[in-house]
């Protein structure tokens, strides 16, 4: 047979993700106080972002929290110049940033970089570059309540 048939279909499944006490506390601090707080492992001292309710390494629950700094260092980055279905409109830059006082890096958009020339943008975003946290004026209690900006764009 030359002409084979295809059938159209799709997933239509909606989820309700429970945020849990740890995430709720993190997002409330983001929204209400414009602060980034992180849980700290009572055993190894790891300050972890994104926040978790337990230490993956020591396997103990965590109830201590610390506030981390509003500046940090880029640990990895990329710039996406093409469109993927249902993903943000290009171009956009994202980076893992180790905020001062945190033990792990957390990803977010870097918004004050000219992305018209990829190579130039990549140079500006290099590993080791300093960024600061910028909070949105209207915060909703999601990870989009803040983004990063280069200190020296």
């Amino acid at each position: 047979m030359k002409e084979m048939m295809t059938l159209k279909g799709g997933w239509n499944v909606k989820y309700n993700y429970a945020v849990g006490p740890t995430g709720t506390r993190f997002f409330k601090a983001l929204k209400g106080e414009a602060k980034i707080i992180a849980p700290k492992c009572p055993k190894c001292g790891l300050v972890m972002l994104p926040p978790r309710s337990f230490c993956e390494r020591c396997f103990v629950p965590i109830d201590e929290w610390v506030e981390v700094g509003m500046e940090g260092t880029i640990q990895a980055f990329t710039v996406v110049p093409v469109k993927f279905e249902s993903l943000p409109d290009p171009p956009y830059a994202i980076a893992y940033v180790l905020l001062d006082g945190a033990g792990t890096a957390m990803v977010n958009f870097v918004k004050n970089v000219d992305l018209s020339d990829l190579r130039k943008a990549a140079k500006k975003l290099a590993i080791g570059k300093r960024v600061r946290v910028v909070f949105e004026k209207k915060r909703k209690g999601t990870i989009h309540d803040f983004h990063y900006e280069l200190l020296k764009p």
Partner: protein
Amino acid sequence: MSDKVAILGVGMTKIDSAKKDQKLDDMVFEAASKALAQASLDREEIDSVVIAACDELDGRCISSMLLAMPAGAYLKDEIKVTDDGSYGVILAAMRLMTGLFDLSLVVSWCKTSEAPLSDVMSMRWDPFYHRGIGMNHITAAALMAGAYAERHGISSDIPAKVVVKNRRNGSRNLNAHLRTPVTMGEVRLSPRVSWPLRALDCAPESDGACALILASPRRAKKLKRDAVRLAGFGWAADSYYLGERMLWDSPSLRIAAGKAYGMAKIKEPVAEIDAAEISDFTSYHELLAYEGLGFCGSGQAQDLIREGITAREGGLPVNPSGGLLCSNPFTAAGLFRICEAFLQVAGKAGDHQIRGATKALAQGSAGFCAQGNAVFVLTQ
């Protein structure tokens, strides 16, 4: 018994309708931590982890990415099965029997409150011939229930009695999701969800996570004589196409039970087994399982119910925990069965303990109309 894998401890979260107070990984961490605590082990001592879960219900397309860590797998040898929580024990036991590992965590979970079970189940049907005609897990179960009732002339009182029995059992189990007993009248008056099933014939949708720790035969040799051993296990699958199956019978369960009994040297299950925890996704599933597990001949499950043999006080109590009809954390349900069977044999089942139980059976199932079945025999 020294060539057998041993079970050192289990951990279960409370089973509830919607655990909104816990993120999925919080729930998994709780179960794994509890199992380690019961076995008096540190995570560092574990050398392997087996996970059993369903991506589509977890709402993450490789859910073990997030959940391997709360399951205790950081820098450990970890592998995942999907069929049912109980399949995790199969894989872990085989891994331990190779001699490559000594201590394994098996972890399973499900938060049905976060995913619309019916939508996901309808996606399980093939897109060409089945999907789109309103089939989900309940309608499939109804086809099986109807076929069974028709074949053996089962009156609706019999499955209703299963519901009453299990709900009464569940009222003694502090961990169960539904803990209020129901009457025959309540079952009869509950709305039809898909003929012949009524709402109370069907398991609820629950959230829960559980974990269990297995020790290799090598390691188990050093344990006390009354340690709980996995004396036998077996599993098998039936056809996906319901039209090709005789829905009033469960060949895969017969095969699985035959293998498990052979390994555990069980000849007369009813006489030898002290308690059974089986996957009663509907009341009819429990009846079919009696036959597949060889508790009785074809069509005779109703006699076991009528005579009260499988009641708490009977010769072979089935689902003393209340079973799935009281708590149904879907994918994890089978591993919960094994955890409950462990509690019975270890004498740790509390208010729902069957006194003097030294041999217990657990059954897990996966797929429409229990397409896949796994059977486990636990002994002291």
